[in-house]
């Protein structure tokens, strides 16, 4: 049982670090703020959540498992809110999409009014 837990926790740690690294690469590679937000919010949250889940799997006592799971739940609740607020603020103020964007639905809703 102990060996299974060790292997599972190791794989979760590696996956979490990989997703965090992918999020950082996405920050540098994507062209505009909205696609960068797509990378950083989703992949970054998934990376931290996986590493916290590895801690919950590895730790034996109930207190640590509860706190790690509470951290995951809190993180999953707040990351979409902050990303949405930041994207909406940037769009309202006028930071534009990159030229290669296909569709700007909020622009259509503005023209309708």
């Amino acid at each position, binding site marked *: 049982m102990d060996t299974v837990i060790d292997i599972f926790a190791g794989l979760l740690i590696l996956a979490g670090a990989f997703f965090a690294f992918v999020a*950082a690469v996405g920050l*540098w590679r994507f062209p505009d703020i909205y696609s960068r937000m797509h990378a950083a919010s989703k992949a*970054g949250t998934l990376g931290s959540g996986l590493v916290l889940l590895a801690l919950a799997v590895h730790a034996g006592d109930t207190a640590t498992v509860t706190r790690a799971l509470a951290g995951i739940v809190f993180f999953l609740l707040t990351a979409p809110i902050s990303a949405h607020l930041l994207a909406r603020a940037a769009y309202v103020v006028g930071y534009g999409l990159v030229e290669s964007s296909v569709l700007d639905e909020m622009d259509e809703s503005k023209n309708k009014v």
Partner: protein
Amino acid sequence: MSTTQFLDFSVHVALAVLSVTFLLTVFKVIRGPTLPDRILALDMLVAVAIGFIAVIGIKTGYTLYLDIAIALGLVGFLATVAFARFILTRGRIEESDSDKPRLVTGDGNRSRASARGKQAAGEAEGRGGATTSEKAPKKVK
């Protein structure tokens, strides 16, 4: 290779990868072209720090920092929300060369510094009692 060795190896690899991630994100904070980019990178810095805390908790068995990780997540969320409100109130400022923060010793600052020097000289003349017609107007609040 036993399973404990595998866990140790994966922890060390994760620490290295997270360090590189942290560095990339910090450089993005420094050179991101717009203010929302910098705020997004700061938000991701908090996530990477939470990952660090979890990996260190696995490595040392010292899980006291988990409370700090939860509090850090709360503070990071509130900071991002406050920054978003700040962008809304500030409006869009074009990031041109004249808006970028410069080193004081840079060449681009020479004109501003000389203007400051002229103004200071004018103020000194005014304080000296000389009746100059070019006194700086007092700021009305």
